[in-house]
Protein backbone atom coordinates (compact mmCIF):
# COMPACT_ATOMS: atom_id res chain seq x y z
CA UNK A 1 0.00 0.00 0.00
CA UNK A 2 1.53 3.22 -1.16
CA UNK A 3 -0.13 6.51 -0.40
CA UNK A 4 0.06 9.35 -2.87
CA UNK A 5 2.76 11.33 -1.23
CA UNK A 6 5.79 12.38 -3.14
CA UNK A 7 8.29 10.14 -4.82
CA UNK A 8 8.97 7.71 -2.00
CA UNK A 9 6.25 5.24 -1.12
CA UNK A 10 5.53 6.02 2.52
CA UNK A 11 4.03 2.73 3.60
CA UNK A 12 4.72 -0.58 1.95
CA UNK A 13 4.02 -4.23 2.55
CA UNK A 14 2.11 -3.44 5.66
CA UNK A 15 -0.38 -6.05 6.72
CA UNK A 16 -2.32 -5.29 9.83
CA UNK A 17 -5.14 -7.68 10.64
CA UNK A 18 -7.20 -7.16 13.76
CA UNK A 19 -9.74 -9.13 15.66
CA UNK A 20 -12.79 -7.43 16.95
CA UNK A 21 -12.29 -6.14 20.48
CA UNK A 22 -8.55 -6.26 20.14
CA UNK A 23 -6.12 -3.64 21.40
CA UNK A 24 -3.12 -3.23 19.16
CA UNK A 25 -0.21 -0.81 19.42
CA UNK A 26 2.11 0.42 16.75
CA UNK A 27 5.50 1.56 17.86
CA UNK A 28 8.22 2.79 15.59
CA UNK A 29 10.71 5.53 14.90
CA UNK A 30 9.61 9.08 14.25
CA UNK A 31 8.70 9.76 10.63
CA UNK A 32 8.36 6.08 9.72
CA UNK A 33 4.80 6.46 8.46
CA UNK A 34 2.60 5.60 11.44
CA UNK A 35 0.36 8.65 11.13
CA UNK A 36 0.17 8.10 7.39
CA UNK A 37 -1.03 4.56 8.00
CA UNK A 38 -3.74 5.92 10.31
CA UNK A 39 -4.77 8.42 7.68
CA UNK A 40 -5.19 5.55 5.24
CA UNK A 41 -7.17 3.42 7.69
CA UNK A 42 -9.36 6.42 8.53
CA UNK A 43 -10.08 6.81 4.82
CA UNK A 44 -8.47 10.24 4.55
CA UNK A 45 -5.67 9.19 2.24
CA UNK A 46 -6.13 6.88 -0.71
CA UNK A 47 -3.27 4.43 -1.07
CA UNK A 48 -1.99 3.95 -4.60
CA UNK A 49 -2.55 0.27 -4.00
CA UNK A 50 -3.72 -1.89 -1.15
CA UNK A 51 -6.95 -2.31 0.66
CA UNK A 52 -8.55 -1.48 3.98
CA UNK A 53 -11.45 -3.59 5.12
CA UNK A 54 -13.71 -3.46 8.14
CA UNK A 55 -15.97 -6.39 8.90
CA UNK A 56 -15.17 -7.65 5.44
CA UNK A 57 -16.25 -4.44 3.73
CA UNK A 58 -13.74 -2.45 1.75
CA UNK A 59 -13.42 1.05 3.28
CA UNK A 60 -10.46 2.51 1.36
CA UNK A 61 -10.98 6.24 0.97
CA UNK A 62 -14.29 6.13 2.82
CA UNK A 63 -13.96 7.99 6.08
CA UNK A 64 -16.38 7.87 9.00
CA UNK A 65 -15.95 4.26 10.00
CA UNK A 66 -13.47 4.80 12.77
CA UNK A 67 -12.95 7.31 15.56
CA UNK A 68 -9.60 8.98 14.98
CA UNK A 69 -7.60 11.05 17.41
CA UNK A 70 -4.98 12.84 15.39
CA UNK A 71 -1.47 13.60 16.56
CA UNK A 72 -2.19 17.33 16.75
CA UNK A 73 -5.12 18.01 19.05
CA UNK A 74 -7.09 20.07 16.50
CA UNK A 75 -9.47 21.50 19.10
CA UNK A 76 -11.74 24.08 17.46
CA UNK A 77 -10.73 27.47 18.91
CA UNK A 78 -14.24 28.88 18.60
CA UNK A 79 -15.87 26.16 20.68
CA UNK A 80 -15.77 25.75 24.42
CA UNK A 81 -14.24 22.55 25.75
CA UNK A 82 -17.70 21.03 26.28
CA UNK A 83 -18.76 21.90 22.75
CA UNK A 84 -15.51 20.52 21.37
CA UNK A 85 -15.91 17.28 23.22
CA UNK A 86 -19.44 16.57 21.96
CA UNK A 87 -18.56 17.29 18.33
CA UNK A 88 -18.72 13.65 17.16
CA UNK A 89 -22.28 12.91 18.34
CA UNK A 90 -23.34 16.38 17.23
CA UNK A 91 -22.16 15.71 13.68
CA UNK A 92 -23.82 12.31 13.81
CA UNK A 93 -27.08 14.04 14.67
CA UNK A 94 -27.48 12.38 18.07
CA UNK A 95 -29.83 13.93 20.65
CA UNK A 96 -27.54 16.28 22.53
CA UNK A 97 -29.00 16.39 26.02
CA UNK A 98 -27.74 12.95 27.17
CA UNK A 99 -24.50 13.42 25.24
CA UNK A 100 -23.74 16.64 27.07
CA UNK A 101 -24.49 15.09 30.41
CA UNK A 102 -22.20 12.18 29.67
CA UNK A 103 -19.51 14.62 28.50
CA UNK A 104 -19.81 16.64 31.70
CA UNK A 105 -19.37 13.53 33.78
CA UNK A 106 -16.35 12.43 31.75
CA UNK A 107 -14.75 15.89 31.79
CA UNK A 108 -14.56 15.50 35.54
CA UNK A 109 -12.85 12.14 35.20
CA UNK A 110 -10.42 13.67 32.71
CA UNK A 111 -9.42 16.36 35.17
CA UNK A 112 -11.06 19.07 33.10
CA UNK A 113 -13.72 19.98 35.62
CA UNK A 114 -14.34 23.73 35.64
CA UNK A 115 -13.09 24.09 32.09
CA UNK A 116 -16.34 23.11 30.34
CA UNK A 117 -16.96 26.66 29.28
CA UNK A 118 -13.36 27.67 28.66
CA UNK A 119 -12.03 28.06 25.17
CA UNK A 120 -9.10 25.81 24.20
CA UNK A 121 -6.57 28.65 24.49
CA UNK A 122 -7.04 28.58 28.27
CA UNK A 123 -5.87 24.95 28.54
CA UNK A 124 -2.42 23.60 29.14
CA UNK A 125 -0.83 21.26 26.59
CA UNK A 126 -1.80 18.13 28.49
CA UNK A 127 -5.32 19.36 29.14
CA UNK A 128 -5.82 19.95 25.44
CA UNK A 129 -4.67 16.44 24.71
CA UNK A 130 -7.07 15.01 27.26
CA UNK A 131 -9.89 17.02 25.76
CA UNK A 132 -9.01 15.68 22.30
CA UNK A 133 -8.93 12.12 23.65
CA UNK A 134 -12.29 12.56 25.31
CA UNK A 135 -13.68 13.95 22.07
CA UNK A 136 -12.52 10.82 20.26
CA UNK A 137 -13.99 8.48 22.82
CA UNK A 138 -17.30 10.38 22.69
CA UNK A 139 -17.61 9.41 19.01
CA UNK A 140 -18.49 5.84 20.03
CA UNK A 141 -17.17 3.91 17.08
CA UNK A 142 -16.27 0.23 17.16
CA UNK A 143 -12.78 1.02 15.86
CA UNK A 144 -10.71 3.71 17.54
CA UNK A 145 -7.40 5.06 16.25
CA UNK A 146 -5.25 6.93 18.76
CA UNK A 147 -2.16 8.75 17.49
CA UNK A 148 0.03 9.33 20.56
CA UNK A 149 -2.82 10.29 22.85
CA UNK A 150 -0.67 10.47 25.96
CA UNK A 151 2.39 12.26 24.61
CA UNK A 152 1.83 15.41 26.66
CA UNK A 153 0.81 13.72 29.89
CA UNK A 154 2.78 13.08 33.05
CA UNK A 155 3.23 9.53 34.29
CA UNK A 156 0.50 9.79 36.92
CA UNK A 157 -2.18 11.25 34.70
CA UNK A 158 -1.09 8.86 32.02
CA UNK A 159 -1.51 5.84 34.30
CA UNK A 160 -5.01 6.99 35.24
CA UNK A 161 -5.88 7.45 31.59
CA UNK A 162 -4.45 4.00 30.73
CA UNK A 163 -6.64 2.26 33.21
CA UNK A 164 -9.64 4.26 32.19
CA UNK A 165 -9.02 3.57 28.49
CA UNK A 166 -8.56 -0.14 29.02
CA UNK A 167 -11.79 -0.17 31.06
CA UNK A 168 -13.66 1.57 28.24
CA UNK A 169 -12.24 -0.75 25.62
CA UNK A 170 -13.14 -3.88 27.63
CA UNK A 171 -16.59 -2.58 28.48
CA UNK A 172 -17.68 -1.44 25.03
CA UNK A 173 -15.90 -4.19 23.09
CA UNK A 174 -14.04 -1.72 20.95
CA UNK A 175 -11.16 -2.35 18.60
CA UNK A 176 -8.37 0.10 19.36
CA UNK A 177 -5.15 0.87 17.55
CA UNK A 178 -2.67 3.02 19.40
CA UNK A 179 0.43 4.76 18.12
CA UNK A 180 2.89 5.32 20.89
CA UNK A 181 6.56 5.83 21.53
CA UNK A 182 6.44 4.32 24.97
CA UNK A 183 7.14 0.55 25.08
CA UNK A 184 5.69 0.34 28.62
CA UNK A 185 2.49 1.86 27.42
CA UNK A 186 2.38 -0.40 24.37
CA UNK A 187 2.95 -3.57 26.35
CA UNK A 188 0.63 -2.63 29.16
CA UNK A 189 -2.32 -1.78 26.97
CA UNK A 190 -2.05 -4.15 24.03
CA UNK A 191 -2.92 -7.61 22.91
CA UNK A 192 -0.26 -7.26 20.26
CA UNK A 193 2.48 -4.73 19.59
CA UNK A 194 3.51 -3.99 16.01
CA UNK A 195 7.01 -2.67 15.66
CA UNK A 196 7.45 -0.55 12.55
CA UNK A 197 10.55 0.30 10.53
CA UNK A 198 10.82 3.20 8.14
CA UNK A 199 11.11 4.05 4.47
CA UNK A 200 8.84 2.63 3.27
CA UNK A 201 7.17 1.62 6.48
CA UNK A 202 6.93 -2.06 7.20
CA UNK A 203 6.65 -4.16 10.33
CA UNK A 204 9.88 -5.58 11.73
CA UNK A 205 7.87 -7.86 13.94
CA UNK A 206 4.82 -8.40 16.04
CA UNK A 207 5.02 -9.02 19.76
CA UNK A 208 1.97 -10.87 21.10
CA UNK A 209 1.33 -9.82 24.68
CA UNK A 210 0.43 -12.73 26.86
CA UNK A 211 -0.42 -10.77 29.96
CA UNK A 212 -3.83 -11.52 31.50
CA UNK A 213 -6.87 -9.91 29.88
CA UNK A 214 -7.76 -8.21 33.14
CA UNK A 215 -4.63 -6.44 34.15
CA UNK A 216 -3.90 -3.92 36.84
CA UNK A 217 -0.95 -1.56 37.20
CA UNK A 218 0.98 -4.14 39.19
CA UNK A 219 1.35 -6.27 36.08
CA UNK A 220 4.08 -3.86 35.00
CA UNK A 221 6.25 -5.21 37.84
CA UNK A 222 6.11 -8.78 36.60
CA UNK A 223 8.96 -10.50 34.76
CA UNK A 224 6.57 -11.28 31.87
CA UNK A 225 6.04 -7.60 31.37
CA UNK A 226 9.78 -6.93 31.41
CA UNK A 227 10.20 -9.73 28.90
CA UNK A 228 7.68 -8.33 26.49
CA UNK A 229 9.19 -4.91 26.81
CA UNK A 230 12.63 -6.31 26.05
CA UNK A 231 11.30 -7.98 22.91
CA UNK A 232 9.77 -4.73 21.72
CA UNK A 233 12.93 -2.79 22.40
CA UNK A 234 15.04 -5.39 20.61
CA UNK A 235 12.83 -5.15 17.53
CA UNK A 236 12.97 -1.39 17.68
CA UNK A 237 16.73 -1.44 17.85
CA UNK A 238 16.65 -3.79 14.87
CA UNK A 239 18.64 -6.57 16.62
CA UNK A 240 19.36 -9.43 14.31
CA UNK A 241 17.57 -12.48 15.56
CA UNK A 242 14.96 -10.61 17.51
CA UNK A 243 12.48 -11.29 14.77
CA UNK A 244 13.27 -14.97 14.76
CA UNK A 245 12.76 -15.14 18.49
CA UNK A 246 9.12 -14.32 18.00
CA UNK A 247 6.33 -16.14 16.17
Amino acid sequence: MTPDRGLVPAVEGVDLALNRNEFVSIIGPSGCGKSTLFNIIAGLLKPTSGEVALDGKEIVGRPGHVAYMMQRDLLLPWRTILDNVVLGPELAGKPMEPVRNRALALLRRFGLEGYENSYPTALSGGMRQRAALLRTIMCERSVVLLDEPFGALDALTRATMHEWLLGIQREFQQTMILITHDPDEAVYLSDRVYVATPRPMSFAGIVPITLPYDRGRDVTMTPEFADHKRQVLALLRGDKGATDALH
Partner: protein
Amino acid sequence: MNAQKTNHASFLSRLGDAALPLGIVVALLAIWEAAVHLLQIQPFVLPAPTEIFKELMISGPTVILPQLHVTMAETMAGYLAAIVVAAVLSVLILYSSAFRRGVLPLVVASQTIPIITMAPVLVIWFGYNSLPRIIITAIVAFFPLTIAAVTGLKSLEPHFIDFFRSLNATPAQIFFKLRLPVALPSIFGGLKVAATLAVIGATISEWVGASQGIGYLIAQDTALLNTTRVFASLTVLGIAGMALFGLVGLIERLSMPWIYARPTMAWLRAQRSPQSPAAAVARPRQ
Protein backbone atom coordinates in the same frame (compact mmCIF):
# COMPACT_ATOMS: atom_id res chain seq x y z
CA MET B 1 -1.54 37.00 27.50
CA ASN B 2 -0.63 39.21 24.77
CA ALA B 3 -3.80 41.25 24.85
CA GLN B 4 -3.29 41.92 28.52
CA LYS B 5 -0.60 44.46 27.86
CA THR B 6 -3.08 46.99 26.53
CA ASN B 7 -5.24 46.42 29.56
CA HIS B 8 -2.75 47.49 32.16
CA ALA B 9 -4.13 51.01 31.94
CA SER B 10 -6.10 52.45 34.80
CA PHE B 11 -9.53 53.92 34.33
CA LEU B 12 -8.06 57.40 34.16
CA SER B 13 -5.67 56.60 31.38
CA ARG B 14 -8.62 54.94 29.64
CA LEU B 15 -10.36 58.27 29.69
CA GLY B 16 -7.21 59.69 28.19
CA ASP B 17 -7.44 57.02 25.49
CA ALA B 18 -10.85 58.40 24.55
CA ALA B 19 -9.67 62.00 24.70
CA LEU B 20 -6.91 61.55 22.16
CA PRO B 21 -9.05 60.39 19.21
CA LEU B 22 -11.59 63.09 20.03
CA GLY B 23 -8.72 65.56 20.04
CA ILE B 24 -7.62 64.37 16.61
CA VAL B 25 -11.08 64.94 15.18
CA VAL B 26 -11.32 68.38 16.75
CA ALA B 27 -7.84 69.26 15.50
CA LEU B 28 -8.68 68.21 11.95
CA LEU B 29 -11.85 70.29 12.01
CA ALA B 30 -9.90 73.25 13.36
CA ILE B 31 -7.31 72.96 10.59
CA TRP B 32 -10.11 72.84 8.03
CA GLU B 33 -11.82 75.87 9.55
CA ALA B 34 -8.56 77.79 9.66
CA ALA B 35 -7.66 76.84 6.10
CA VAL B 36 -11.00 78.04 4.80
CA HIS B 37 -10.55 81.39 6.51
CA LEU B 38 -6.85 81.89 5.92
CA LEU B 39 -6.76 80.71 2.31
CA GLN B 40 -10.09 82.43 1.70
CA ILE B 41 -11.55 79.30 0.17
CA GLN B 42 -14.96 80.24 -1.16
CA PRO B 43 -17.93 78.44 0.36
CA PHE B 44 -19.01 77.01 -2.99
CA VAL B 45 -15.69 75.21 -3.18
CA LEU B 46 -15.40 74.09 0.44
CA PRO B 47 -17.58 75.50 3.20
CA ALA B 48 -16.14 75.91 6.70
CA PRO B 49 -17.10 73.26 9.29
CA THR B 50 -18.92 75.88 11.34
CA GLU B 51 -21.02 76.80 8.31
CA ILE B 52 -21.81 73.16 7.67
CA PHE B 53 -22.74 72.77 11.32
CA LYS B 54 -25.05 75.79 11.14
CA GLU B 55 -26.65 74.37 8.01
CA LEU B 56 -27.06 71.04 9.80
CA MET B 57 -28.89 72.77 12.63
CA ILE B 58 -31.17 74.56 10.19
CA SER B 59 -32.06 72.02 7.55
CA GLY B 60 -30.87 68.84 9.26
CA PRO B 61 -34.05 67.82 11.05
CA THR B 62 -36.51 69.22 8.53
CA VAL B 63 -34.92 68.59 5.15
CA ILE B 64 -32.02 66.17 5.37
CA LEU B 65 -33.23 63.59 7.88
CA PRO B 66 -36.47 62.70 6.06
CA GLN B 67 -34.40 62.07 2.92
CA LEU B 68 -31.84 60.09 4.90
CA HIS B 69 -34.67 57.87 6.03
CA VAL B 70 -35.47 56.97 2.42
CA THR B 71 -31.83 56.38 1.54
CA MET B 72 -31.12 54.25 4.58
CA ALA B 73 -34.13 52.06 3.84
CA GLU B 74 -32.70 51.42 0.37
CA THR B 75 -29.26 50.95 1.88
CA MET B 76 -30.45 48.29 4.27
CA ALA B 77 -32.49 46.46 1.63
CA GLY B 78 -29.59 46.54 -0.82
CA TYR B 79 -27.14 45.51 1.90
CA LEU B 80 -29.20 42.50 2.86
CA ALA B 81 -29.62 41.58 -0.80
CA ALA B 82 -25.84 41.90 -1.24
CA ILE B 83 -25.29 39.57 1.72
CA VAL B 84 -27.60 36.97 0.19
CA VAL B 85 -25.93 37.28 -3.23
CA ALA B 86 -22.46 37.08 -1.68
CA ALA B 87 -23.44 34.03 0.35
CA VAL B 88 -24.68 32.19 -2.72
CA LEU B 89 -21.74 33.26 -4.87
CA SER B 90 -19.08 32.44 -2.34
CA VAL B 91 -20.48 28.96 -1.85
CA LEU B 92 -20.56 28.45 -5.62
CA ILE B 93 -17.02 29.78 -6.00
CA LEU B 94 -15.83 27.54 -3.17
CA TYR B 95 -17.42 24.34 -4.38
CA SER B 96 -17.72 24.61 -8.13
CA SER B 97 -14.56 24.94 -10.16
CA ALA B 98 -16.74 25.34 -13.26
CA PHE B 99 -18.41 28.34 -11.67
CA ARG B 100 -15.10 29.66 -10.41
CA ARG B 101 -13.59 29.53 -13.86
CA GLY B 102 -16.66 30.18 -15.96
CA VAL B 103 -18.73 32.67 -14.05
CA LEU B 104 -16.38 34.34 -11.59
CA PRO B 105 -14.49 36.12 -14.41
CA LEU B 106 -17.83 37.47 -15.64
CA VAL B 107 -18.68 38.66 -12.15
CA VAL B 108 -15.26 40.33 -11.99
CA ALA B 109 -15.85 41.95 -15.37
CA SER B 110 -19.28 43.16 -14.25
CA GLN B 111 -17.62 44.99 -11.38
CA THR B 112 -15.71 47.22 -13.77
CA ILE B 113 -18.95 48.55 -15.28
CA PRO B 114 -19.78 52.02 -13.96
CA ILE B 115 -23.15 51.25 -12.47
CA ILE B 116 -24.61 54.55 -13.62
CA THR B 117 -24.47 53.34 -17.20
CA MET B 118 -26.62 50.41 -16.17
CA ALA B 119 -29.08 52.46 -14.16
CA PRO B 120 -31.40 53.37 -17.07
CA VAL B 121 -31.64 49.74 -18.15
CA LEU B 122 -32.57 48.77 -14.63
CA VAL B 123 -35.22 51.47 -14.55
CA ILE B 124 -36.57 50.28 -17.89
CA TRP B 125 -36.80 46.73 -16.59
CA PHE B 126 -37.94 47.27 -13.04
CA GLY B 127 -39.82 50.54 -13.18
CA TYR B 128 -39.95 53.65 -11.06
CA ASN B 129 -39.91 52.13 -7.65
CA SER B 130 -37.12 51.50 -5.24
CA LEU B 131 -36.28 48.12 -6.78
CA PRO B 132 -33.70 49.39 -9.30
CA ARG B 133 -32.08 51.37 -6.53
CA ILE B 134 -31.92 48.37 -4.24
CA ILE B 135 -30.43 46.35 -7.09
CA ILE B 136 -27.80 49.02 -7.74
CA THR B 137 -26.96 49.11 -4.05
CA ALA B 138 -26.61 45.34 -3.96
CA ILE B 139 -24.48 45.28 -7.12
CA VAL B 140 -22.13 47.85 -5.64
CA ALA B 141 -21.84 46.07 -2.29
CA PHE B 142 -21.78 42.35 -2.95
CA PHE B 143 -18.40 41.90 -4.58
CA PRO B 144 -15.92 42.82 -1.83
CA LEU B 145 -18.05 40.79 0.54
CA THR B 146 -17.92 37.79 -1.77
CA ILE B 147 -14.16 37.95 -2.16
CA ALA B 148 -13.66 38.38 1.58
CA ALA B 149 -15.96 35.45 2.30
CA VAL B 150 -14.17 33.21 -0.19
CA THR B 151 -10.79 34.22 1.21
CA GLY B 152 -12.03 33.39 4.69
CA LEU B 153 -13.73 30.15 3.75
CA LYS B 154 -10.55 28.92 2.07
CA SER B 155 -8.25 29.99 4.88
CA LEU B 156 -8.44 26.99 7.16
CA GLU B 157 -5.73 24.45 7.74
CA PRO B 158 -6.40 21.31 5.70
CA HIS B 159 -5.86 19.17 8.81
CA PHE B 160 -9.14 20.44 10.22
CA ILE B 161 -11.00 19.28 7.15
CA ASP B 162 -9.35 15.89 7.44
CA PHE B 163 -10.43 15.74 11.02
CA PHE B 164 -14.03 16.56 10.10
CA ARG B 165 -13.93 14.06 7.27
CA SER B 166 -12.72 11.40 9.68
CA LEU B 167 -15.91 12.10 11.66
CA ASN B 168 -17.90 11.53 8.47
CA ALA B 169 -19.10 15.12 8.53
CA THR B 170 -21.38 16.09 5.66
CA PRO B 171 -20.23 18.88 3.34
CA ALA B 172 -22.88 21.06 4.97
CA GLN B 173 -21.46 20.34 8.41
CA ILE B 174 -17.93 21.06 7.21
CA PHE B 175 -19.23 24.33 5.86
CA PHE B 176 -21.29 25.52 8.79
CA LYS B 177 -19.34 24.08 11.70
CA LEU B 178 -15.84 24.51 10.34
CA ARG B 179 -15.35 26.82 7.40
CA LEU B 180 -17.82 29.43 8.51
CA PRO B 181 -16.41 30.02 12.02
CA VAL B 182 -12.90 30.12 10.54
CA ALA B 183 -14.07 32.63 7.93
CA LEU B 184 -15.88 34.92 10.37
CA PRO B 185 -13.13 37.52 10.84
CA SER B 186 -12.70 37.83 7.08
CA ILE B 187 -16.46 37.88 6.49
CA PHE B 188 -16.87 40.68 8.99
CA GLY B 189 -14.11 42.60 7.21
CA GLY B 190 -16.13 42.21 4.02
CA LEU B 191 -19.36 43.15 5.77
CA LYS B 192 -17.79 46.38 6.97
CA VAL B 193 -16.61 47.35 3.51
CA ALA B 194 -19.97 46.36 2.04
CA ALA B 195 -21.74 48.55 4.61
CA THR B 196 -20.01 51.70 3.39
CA LEU B 197 -20.44 50.66 -0.23
CA ALA B 198 -24.16 50.07 0.32
CA VAL B 199 -24.55 53.61 1.62
CA ILE B 200 -22.71 55.05 -1.36
CA GLY B 201 -24.55 52.75 -3.77
CA ALA B 202 -27.96 53.80 -2.51
CA THR B 203 -26.96 57.44 -2.73
CA ILE B 204 -25.65 57.17 -6.29
CA SER B 205 -28.70 55.19 -7.32
CA GLU B 206 -30.83 58.19 -6.43
CA TRP B 207 -29.11 60.18 -9.13
CA VAL B 208 -31.26 58.21 -11.58
CA GLY B 209 -34.98 57.73 -11.52
CA ALA B 210 -35.52 58.88 -7.96
CA SER B 211 -37.42 61.86 -6.66
CA GLN B 212 -36.45 61.53 -3.06
CA GLY B 213 -33.59 60.37 -0.92
CA ILE B 214 -30.40 62.04 0.15
CA GLY B 215 -28.76 61.37 -3.22
CA TYR B 216 -31.57 63.24 -4.96
CA LEU B 217 -31.22 66.06 -2.47
CA ILE B 218 -27.48 66.26 -3.10
CA ALA B 219 -28.01 66.32 -6.88
CA GLN B 220 -30.59 69.12 -6.56
CA ASP B 221 -28.47 71.12 -4.14
CA THR B 222 -25.44 70.68 -6.39
CA ALA B 223 -27.38 72.09 -9.33
CA LEU B 224 -28.58 74.98 -7.19
CA LEU B 225 -25.06 75.63 -5.89
CA ASN B 226 -26.27 74.93 -2.35
CA THR B 227 -22.78 73.70 -1.56
CA THR B 228 -23.08 74.09 2.20
CA ARG B 229 -26.16 71.91 2.31
CA VAL B 230 -24.46 69.39 0.02
CA PHE B 231 -21.72 69.13 2.64
CA ALA B 232 -24.29 68.94 5.43
CA SER B 233 -25.94 66.04 3.60
CA LEU B 234 -22.58 64.37 3.08
CA THR B 235 -21.89 64.77 6.80
CA VAL B 236 -25.16 63.10 7.69
CA LEU B 237 -24.39 60.35 5.18
CA GLY B 238 -20.95 59.90 6.73
CA ILE B 239 -22.42 59.60 10.20
CA ALA B 240 -24.94 57.05 8.94
CA GLY B 241 -22.15 55.07 7.29
CA MET B 242 -20.05 55.21 10.46
CA ALA B 243 -23.02 54.02 12.49
CA LEU B 244 -23.63 51.08 10.17
CA PHE B 245 -19.91 50.26 10.18
CA GLY B 246 -19.87 50.49 13.97
CA LEU B 247 -22.93 48.29 14.25
CA VAL B 248 -21.27 45.61 12.14
CA GLY B 249 -18.17 45.94 14.32
CA LEU B 250 -20.30 45.43 17.44
CA ILE B 251 -21.95 42.33 15.99
CA GLU B 252 -18.47 41.13 15.07
CA ARG B 253 -17.30 41.38 18.69
CA LEU B 254 -20.39 39.64 19.97
CA SER B 255 -20.16 36.86 17.38
CA MET B 256 -16.59 35.93 18.18
CA PRO B 257 -16.35 35.58 21.96
CA TRP B 258 -13.36 33.28 21.61
CA ILE B 259 -11.43 36.18 20.18
CA TYR B 260 -12.91 39.21 21.86
CA ALA B 261 -14.60 38.24 25.14
CA ARG B 262 -11.59 36.84 26.91
CA PRO B 263 -8.96 39.15 28.26
CA THR B 264 -10.73 42.18 29.68
CA MET B 265 -12.88 40.26 32.13
CA ALA B 266 -10.04 38.11 33.36
CA TRP B 267 -7.95 41.19 33.82
CA LEU B 268 -10.60 43.02 35.84
CA ARG B 269 -11.06 40.09 38.15
CA ALA B 270 -7.35 39.58 38.58
CA GLN B 271 -7.05 43.20 39.71
CA ARG B 272 -9.50 42.60 42.51
CA SER B 273 -8.03 39.32 43.79
CA PRO B 274 -5.64 39.59 46.76
CA GLN B 275 -2.01 39.53 45.83
CA SER B 276 -0.01 36.54 46.91
CA PRO B 277 3.44 36.65 48.49
CA ALA B 278 6.31 37.40 46.20
CA ALA B 279 8.86 34.76 45.34
CA ALA B 280 11.93 34.79 43.23
CA VAL B 281 12.26 32.74 40.11
CA ALA B 282 15.38 31.66 38.32
CA ARG B 283 17.70 33.72 40.47
CA PRO B 284 21.22 32.64 39.67
CA ARG B 285 23.30 31.86 42.70
CA GLN B 286 26.65 33.21 41.71
